[in-house]
């Protein structure tokens, strides 16, 4: 392995981690408010399609991003109606949303573009432009720092930077603002929030909607930044990897960033090599693909630092005294 390859893999790690990070933070915010969200995959997929479709139609990627957010928030609200208003099973609602998106995207794509359930390839203004950070060219040849700054950190689409900016923002929102305090409280003990005279339903809808916005960004980046157009099932389980990352990070924003970077790295490596030698053991590519899930199960089992979810997650709030 040479340095060029390392730089490439790390750069690719950042790009692959971006949709995971958005989705992971979406799940984190929703579950912190007490609403299970296993529909991340579906929301991302719907958003990816909308972004690509509108970006293609208008030639403007940002209109695509906006439509992606609208679509994703719409689905979130459907989840809200089922999970919060009608106190239905949040997990089943999430499963339904994943299928709904998987089916609808193809049906609509076929109807609009007749290209076998995909959108036409995006180019020009329909794709997210890469951004070169200031002085990226100037420091390119500086040893060590040069490749890190110019090769790894610079040259990604705007949403990559937005995603990583969302980490401190989420942290700040959750732990430094009134809204965050209430949001965390409603996920731990909604009765405490209710007796304090705050609307449990309102808070949960708010959290679910924010999750929708983030999933919208995740999907939009996937189809207009990472790829150049939408293809069927293009999320390929990323919503579940994000879910895994959320558990792995034990519902904490900074740790979530660490988790998605790890999982993104595994994906980048798996994309590059068929197998990898570690300490004389040959690790097949499938093992790397499965690793995020295996790690999550280990964490869930509590063998290494138990992951304790927000206490009220998954249970609809019913007033009782």
């Amino acid at each position, binding site marked *: 392995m040479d340095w060029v390859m390392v730089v490439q893999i790390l750069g690719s790690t950042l790009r692959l981690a971006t949709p995971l990070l958005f989705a992971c933070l979406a799940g984190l915010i929703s579950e912190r408010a007490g609403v299970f969200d296993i529909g991340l995959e579906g929301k991302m997929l719907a958003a990816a399609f909308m972004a690509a479709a509108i970006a293609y139609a208008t030639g403007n990627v940002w209109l695509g991003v906006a439509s992606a957010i609208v679509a994703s928030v719409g689905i979130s609200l459907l989840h809200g109606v089922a999970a919060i208003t009608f106190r239905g099973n949040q997990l089943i609602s999430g499963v339904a949303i994943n299928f709904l998106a998987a089916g609808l995207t193809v049906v609509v794509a076929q109807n609009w573009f007749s290209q076998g359930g995909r959108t036409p390839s995006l180019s020009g203004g329909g794709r997210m432009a890469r951004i070169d950070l200031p002085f990226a060219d100037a420091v390119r040849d500086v040893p060590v720092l040069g490749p890190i700054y110019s090769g790894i950190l610079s040259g990604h689409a705007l949403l990559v930077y937005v995603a990583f900016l969302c980490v401190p923002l989420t942290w700040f929102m959750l732990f430094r603002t*009134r809204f965050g305090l*209430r949001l*965390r409280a409603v996920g731990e003990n909604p009765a405490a929030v209710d*007796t304090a*005279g*705050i609307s449990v339903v309102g808070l949960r809808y708010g959290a679910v909607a924010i999750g929708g916005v983030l999933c919208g960004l995740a999907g939009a980046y996937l189809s207009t930044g990472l790829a150049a157009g939408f293809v069927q099932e293009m999320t390929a389980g990323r919503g579940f990897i994000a879910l895994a990352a959320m558990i792995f990070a034990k519902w904490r924003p900074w740790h979530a960033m660490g988790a998605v970077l790890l999982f993104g790295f595994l994906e980048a490596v798996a994309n590059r090599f068929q197998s990898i030698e570690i300490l004389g053991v040959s690790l097949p590519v499938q093992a790397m693909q499965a690793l995020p899930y295996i790690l999550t199960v280990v964490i869930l089992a509590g063998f290494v630092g138990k992951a304790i979810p927000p206490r009220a997650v998954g249970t609809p709030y019913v007033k009782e005294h």
Partner: protein
Amino acid sequence: MTATDISPRAQTTDYAIELRGISKAFGPVQANKDISIQVRRGTIHGIVGENGAGKSTLMSILYGFYRADAGEILINGQATEIPDSQSAIRAGIGMVFQHFKLVENFSVLENVILGAEAGGMLRPSLSRARGLLKDLAREFELNVDPDAKVEDLSVGHQQRVEILKALYREADILILDEPTGVLTPSEADHLFRILRGLKDQGKTIILITHKLREIMDVTDDVSVMRRGEMVATRPTAQTSPTELAELMVGRKVLLRVEKPPARPGKIVLQVDNLRVVDSQGVERLRGISLNVRAGEILGIAGVAGNGQSELLEVLAGLRDAEGQAQLRGEDLPLAGPGAGAISRRRQGVAHVPEDRHRRGLVLRFMAWENMALGYHHDAAYNAGPLRMNNAAIMRDTEAKMQHFDVRPPDPLLQAEGFSGGNQQKLVLAREMERNPEILLVGQPTRGVDIGAIEFIHQQLIRLRDQGSAILLVSVELDEILALSDRIAVMFDGRIMGERQSDQTNAQELGLLMAGMT
């Protein structure tokens, strides 16, 4: 004695709270009937009553959880609508619930400001709260570490956080619902010092409790509730525990159960020094010793939550405990293998649980399926290593339903389709028809209509006369008095005293139940 008279001359401004004619029904159950009460500003006002007397409903109305069907609430002389808790908070009412409404993994400060933050950002609210907490700690002995996580605090400290929450919201009126139920005696004393301090600052405090000692110690006035009605209000100085106990219990229509004198035989169950610590580290049973003989009914009296449920669960094999127990002279394991519900049943311990909806029945199972609950390993109910003999269970159910006069006598009806009384008869039929060595019964007639009560009582006496031992737990003192041959009173995880039922009366037991000896 009727409700407190509302004198038109009374200066309403002297009262922090005045309720007029409050009524509230839940379906057919009238939880509050035409309740009127006046609470003087700057006093501690106690409200006492048995379980189900309607105290909690009344306070929930005051805090905006329920809307009264009729009546008026006046706060400081002003008629006030309280449709939700937000309005109650705005009206200056703070509530300390029996089960705390705290976010356990939040810090004390975070809990205190939740819902009363000073702006979009937390920092200013937190530092304001920190300052206020420091003042309150000095003033009222309300000291808690503001940065500690609530889950790491003792129950007593958690309660202080609830009080701090109310004070942070500038509550003038503080309602405490059974505040000492979870406290140690020294914690309770501390709480009362806090309450007196608050009173001296002009706060009004409503204290809901069933413990008469506390009422006598700390209140200025006391109101007694019984069966949804406010039966009396007295200045505490002019009343006595005896009078209050009498008012609480009332001169009810005495339940009469025809029963021949008991002929107690050998000791069936002997229990020594039973101890249970619950998952929160609170000691629920603090050394219970008792025995029950064949052919007698031992009644356990007490206000709910004083350890009776835990006692039943331990004996029924649903909860581990420390101590010794013997059934017919043989050791009965209280933990580990051999202590489970199945083994207990095999040894002849039958159990009618306190909560038949949650435990005693699977509501969506048909009557005949419920008849096998707990006895599904019984040889007569099985037709092979795997197969259950449904036909045999069905026949058995029909016979038992007949015998216990369950209506409708339809073994195919789901349990939830029966009335409360008939559900209970189903459970009793299942547990009693096997002539157990000992029958553990919890609240046998809770939510049961009068006709069924009589029938159930007769059946219990019949079982006793056939030579079974019966341990009866009930919060209905009448029931205990009517059925038991001996009565033990539980209070705070201990047995306060044991009496022969023909040598005691409701007043004496009422005092014991309130922790007075």
